[in-house]
């Protein structure tokens, strides 16, 4: 039984509630006890560090200090952007000078004792794949998946220290373990356009369109992602992309946790497939029914 502090992040409360819910559901099913960080607040997200690095680190460190107050040493977050901010704060505060500046902004100083990981890293490094396999009730046989990690889950490598920064395999291995056919998707860590969706939609249309095109060429039935922003750009904006590029993509974009939950036979209500914009039913229909129901 793993006991880990859990930092949901703001998108988990809004645009990616299905990511948050399915993450909690699969962790429960895999005996990972998540305890929410008490009174958690924004990690600083993209705006803070564009203005002030000390402020950005302090916003993240406040949450990490909360983890320390809970008497815990490991915190996991589903969101790569939160992960990046929390880890950057931890890294920068190794410098005593910087640490005192950031702590000056906080009521409770952060002592830098917390290890920050993504939920994906917890699953990849601390859960035996054989154990996951043993829990599978609906193997994903028959569905072809492109695993898309996004640009910051593994990069910069010296900071993230997880998997491979050009060719990560954690999600590929996880999806293969639950029976899916994983296509050799070459653009795993390419940019989706990120927050340019608002000021410069054309950039997202071009970059995300390229990802969808590469997935389609490989015959992928769907994508899985681990990032709320990637998922939003590929899923919510897929219609815009189709309009802009005169394309006709209909590729559902799952969170990896949703398909993992599906394979583990969890309650569909917890997985939130209904929240997806691109209808996932055709892709899910590719999954062969398990033997016992035949």
């Amino acid at each position, binding site marked *: 039984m793993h006991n880990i502090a859990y930092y949901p992040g703001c998108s988990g409360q809004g645009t990616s509630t299905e990511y948050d819910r399915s993450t909690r559901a699969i962790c429960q099913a895999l005996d990972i006890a998540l305890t929410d960080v008490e009174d958690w607040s924004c990690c600083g997200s993209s705006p803070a560090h564009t203005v002030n690095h000390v402020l950005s680190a302090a916003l993240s460190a406040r949450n990490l200090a909360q983890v320390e107050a809970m008497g815990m040493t490991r915190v996991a977050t589903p969101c790569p952007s939160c992960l990046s901010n929390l880890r950057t704060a931890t890294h920068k505060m190794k410098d005593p000078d910087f640490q005192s500046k950031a702590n000056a902004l906080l009521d409770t100083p952060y002592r830098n004792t917390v290890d920050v990981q993504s939920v994906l890293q917890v699953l990849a490094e601390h859960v035996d794949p054989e154990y996951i396999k043993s829990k599978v009730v609906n193997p994903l046989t028959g569905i072809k998946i492109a695993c898309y990690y996004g640009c910051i889950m593994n990069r910069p490598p010296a900071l993230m220290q997880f998997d*491979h*920064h050009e060719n990560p395999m954690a999600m590929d291995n996880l999806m293969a373990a639950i029976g899916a056919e994983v296509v050799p998707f*070459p653009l795993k860590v390419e940019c989706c356009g990120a927050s340019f969706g608002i000021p410069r939609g054309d950039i997202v249309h071009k970059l995300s369109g390229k990802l969808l095109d*590469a997935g389609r060429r490989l015959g992928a039935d769907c994508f899985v992602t681990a990032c709320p922003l990637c998922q939003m750009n590929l899923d919510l904006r897929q219609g815009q992309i189709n309009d802009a590029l005169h394309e006709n993509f209909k590729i559902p974009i799952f969170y990896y946790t949703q398909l993992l939950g599906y394979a583990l036979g969890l309650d569909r209500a917890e997985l939130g497939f209904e929240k997806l914009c691109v209808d996932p039913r055709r892709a899910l229909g590719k999954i062969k029914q398990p033997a016992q129901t035949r």
Partner: protein
Amino acid sequence: MRIGVFICHCGSNIAGTVDCPSVAATALTYPDVVFSTDTMYACSEPGQDAIIQAVKEKNLDGVVVASCTPRMHEQTFRRAVERAGLNRYMFEMANIREHVSWIGKTKDLNTNKAAELVRMAVEKLRRNRPLFAKRFETVKRVLVIGGGVAGIQAALDCADGGQEVVLVEREQSIGGKMAKLDKTFPTVDCSSCVLGPKMVDIAQHPNITLYTCSEVESVGGYVGNFQVTIRKKATYVDWSKCTGCGLCVEKCPSRKHPDTFNEGLCTAPSINIPFPQAIPKKAAINAASCIMLTKGKCGVCAKVCPVKCIDFEQKDELVTVDVGAVVVATGYDLFDWHKYPQYGEGRYKDVITSMQYERLLSASGPTGGHIKRPSDGKEPKNVVFIQCVGSRDRSVNRPYCSGFCCMYTAKQAILTKDHVPDSQSFVFYMDIRSPGKMYDEFTRRAMEEYGAQYVRGRVSMIYPQDDKLIVRGADTLAGTQVEVPADLVVLAVGAESARGAVQLGEKLRVAPDQYGFFVESHPKLKPVETNTAGVFLAGACQGPKDIPASVGQGSAAASKVLGLLSKKELESDPAVSRVNPGRCVGCGKCVQTCPFGAIKMIEDRFGNPKAEVIDTVCQGCGICTVTCPQGAIQLEHFTDNQILAEVNALCPPKMFANFE
């Protein structure tokens, strides 16, 4: 004793930050110093003449020169004092350039330090005694290690000069990297046509003994008298009988291991002759993949061999030879590009190295000289070359330029157009480095006549799309990102030191630099000498080099060997260890610690065990002197008393302070 001191200005090299006249004046106050002066260039002819004149006029019996490093001019000044009629060991040198003027900026402190170094030299010189070199004969035979083009050239030149040559090559055939090349720049002439005759000369020269599939096991001795043990690795074929008919190669049923001569582009039979022009043209068995040697049954080669030369029982053999000099020509290896994740780490079959591309271009290569890409055998139309893969990149600890990649990439772009006229080459480069006769003209031809598109920038990723590889990079001249759909990507991999170079260097006492290339004696003036007398360097083992430079160094090393061995006798350095039998208790510790085996135990006339130094083997390292519990063994010219005198000169004992 009457000592003369000469403080050299070395132009402004020393005088710029050291007050030389003041150092000379201070030196005059040191014990036994009767003459002291400063001089503009002590090493120049007038400078040396002044030393000789002073010795004669002032009746000096010892000389100190404070100037540059002894590595530079100790021999020069020793010869000068000898011409003045003194023993050459009645001379000391203080290094006030490398150790003072070049490293310190404050003139007062520098002047003070220079004076102290002179004081140390004077104190040592006061305890010097004349030493006399012994003479010994040299073995008129030379060992050449490595049978690439540099080693081949060195071996042929030495052999033509009348010396016996032993050529040792690790691989099955000589020829090295050059034998794998299709054409050579900038003339685009056939590599094996140029090299082939030289390889045949090696085989046929009466003065040359060739050992291939062999490595140097150990090296003992010293200049003029090296003892070398060579390990002839088992080939499981009796080469005295093998005719190279190739019947066994045809019939061998085990053909799965990668063909190293063809850079792994195809597989090779377990018994093989690597290429048609191989010298010696003999078959050898790869023990790791041979069915007979791994599983104990098969033996097809033995059955078909018309001369019955297969011997599965063959063992490694050790051969010992005496040589007077050694030429190291061990070449280089190619950088392992898999360290770069952005090129796919081997996931994409159509990303190959430049050397693999040479084999695809070569008529004797796996595709018979037709360019076929590895994945599906199709002829590529768009070929992308990426330069500086493992060169000029600190992130992979290869900050140096490999020097020849710009040229061979241009050559390969030209050959691509020759082979596939409707093809288009793209070259991603950082800078074009083509200094050399007809070199820059050559790269221009690739661009202007053969239409290769040169893109200045690095490649950030390669990814597959359908049956193409998309190469994404920066075009830093246009300030934009470019993506090129490629059918084949060729990585211009850089050079790194040959595997095993560092270990070989240890055996030969030749130091490698931080990248494993051997260090020459002087970067400008002694490019093929090493700091171990009698051991010379040729070719890319000293640093990346193209063919003309390697051949030039092969000949240069050979001329050094011929010069050395043309002397009937050599003088040994008398600065060797000496045992005082009265103090020696015969414990034998020095015998155990001597790294050169230069000390043996003898019995004196009363039957007591005593140590004795073999003069010609001793290298004067001094390890024995610090090992001896009795202080019975002393290094001539560097005795304990001499070194302690130097220490005392620097830090005078303060005992008298207690009696104030």
